[in-house]
C-alpha cells in the first residue's frame, strides 16, 4: 500500500491552492494586495508542511470523511481565487477553507 490516499489528496489540494494563490500574486501590481496574498500563501504553505508530515500515517474512516469535505471546499476555493475581484473576499475564503483543513489535520495528528 502506498501513501495514505486521503491525506495525499489533502496534501495535493493544499499545494494546488498555494499554486492558485501564487498565480494571483504573479498578476498583482498592488503592493498591499500582494502582501495580503503572500500572508495567505504562508498559511497554506504551513498546512502543506503539516499534511506532508502526515502523508504516511494511517487515518480512520471518520477523518477520511472530514478530508472529503475539505477537498470539496478546496475545489470551490480554487475557482474563487481565479474569479474573485476583491482580495478581501479571497482572504475570507482561504480563512474558511483553512478552518476545515485544521480540523482534519488536528484529528489526524491525534493518531501519531
Amino acid at each position, binding site marked *: 500500500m502506498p501513501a495514505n490516499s486521503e491525506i495525499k489528496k489533502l496534501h495535493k489540494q493544499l499545494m494546488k491552492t498555494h499554486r492558485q494563490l501564487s498565480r494571483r500574486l504573479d498578476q498583482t501590481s498592488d503592493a498591499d494586495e500582494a502582501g495580503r496574498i503572500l500572508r495567505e500563501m504562508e498559511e497554506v504553505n504551513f498546512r502543506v*508542511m503539516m499534511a506532508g508530515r502526515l502523508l504516511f500515517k494511517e487515518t480512520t474512516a471518520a477523518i477520511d470523511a472530514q478530508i472529503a469535505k475539505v477537498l470539496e471546499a478546496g475545489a470551490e476555493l480554487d475557482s474563487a481565487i481565479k474569479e474573485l475581484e476583491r482580495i478581501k473576499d479571497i482572504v475570507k475564503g482561504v480563512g474558511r477553507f483553512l478552518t476545515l483543513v485544521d480540523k482534519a489535520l488536528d484529528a489526524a495528528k491525534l493518531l501519531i
Partner: protein
Amino acid sequence: MTALFVALCVASLVGCTAGSSAEAIPPLRQGVVTANQQSQTAFADVNAMLREQQLDRVVNQPTLSEDAFFSAIAAEELAVWHRAFASIEVYFGKLEMLLSPDRRTEVEGELRTLGTDLEQRYAVARGEELPPGIAAGFVKLGGLLVQLKAGQDAVVIIRKVNPAVQDIFLSMAEAIGTRDAEGNLEGVRGTVWTAWTQQLGTFQVAFLNADSAQKRRIAEQYLEMLGEREAHDRALASFRASILALGAAHDQLAQGDRVSAAGLIRIVQEEYKGLRDEIAAMKAAREAAGGGQ
C-alpha cells in the same frame, strides 16, 4: 524522467564490464549505505529549509507557541528510514553469501532467520513508523525468506523475493515523490517545491515595494532563487533515482543478468554529489550577496 534515467543506466551497463552476480553485491551494498547517508542528508536539508519557513511565518502570528514549529520529517522517522536501509544492507550481505558456492549452506539458515526477524519487526512498524508500503514490503520479504528451501538455485531465490524488494524500493521512491499526471510534484518534493515558491513570493512583494534602483537587485535575487528551487528538487530527484537504481540492480540480479551494479551506483552517486555541490554554491552566492529580500 527519473525512471527513464535509471532504465537507461541499467540498459547501458548490462553486458559491459560485467562480473559474476556475487561480484555485483559489494557495490550494491555500498549503494545502500550511500542511499542511507543521502536520506539522512536530504531529510535534514528539508527540515532546515522548512524550519526557516516556520520562522518566517511566526513573525506574522499574534502569539508565539510551540505549535508553530515542527520537524517536517520527525527524528523518529529519520531513525526508521536509517533502520530500513540497514535491513536492506543485511539482506544484500546474505545474498552475497548465497551467491558464493562455498558459503551457501551456512547462509540458507541465516536467510530464514533474517526472514523471521523482518516479518516480526515490520509487522509491528506497519502504519506507525514507516510509510506503509515499505513496512508491508519488508513483511512480504521476510515471509518469502522464511519459506526458502535448502539447495534452491540462488537466482531462483532472488527472483522469488524480487517483487517484495521492488515494493520496498518503489514505496521509498514514492515517499520522496514524483510528478503527477498534470506535472505537479508530490510527496516530499511537492512540499519542498511549495516552500521555495513561498520564498519567491517574498521577492515578488518586495519588488512591488521597491524603487527602480532596487528592483534590478531584487529581480536578480529572485532569479537566483528560481535556480535554487530547481537544484533542490533535482537533489531530491537524485536521491529518488538512487533508490530506484538499487531496485533496478536487484531486478537485474533476479533476471540472472550480469549487470555492473558498481557502474550504476557510481553514476547515481556522482550525480547526487554534483547537485549537492551546486546547491552549496548557490547558497554561498546568495549569502555573499546579502541574502533575504
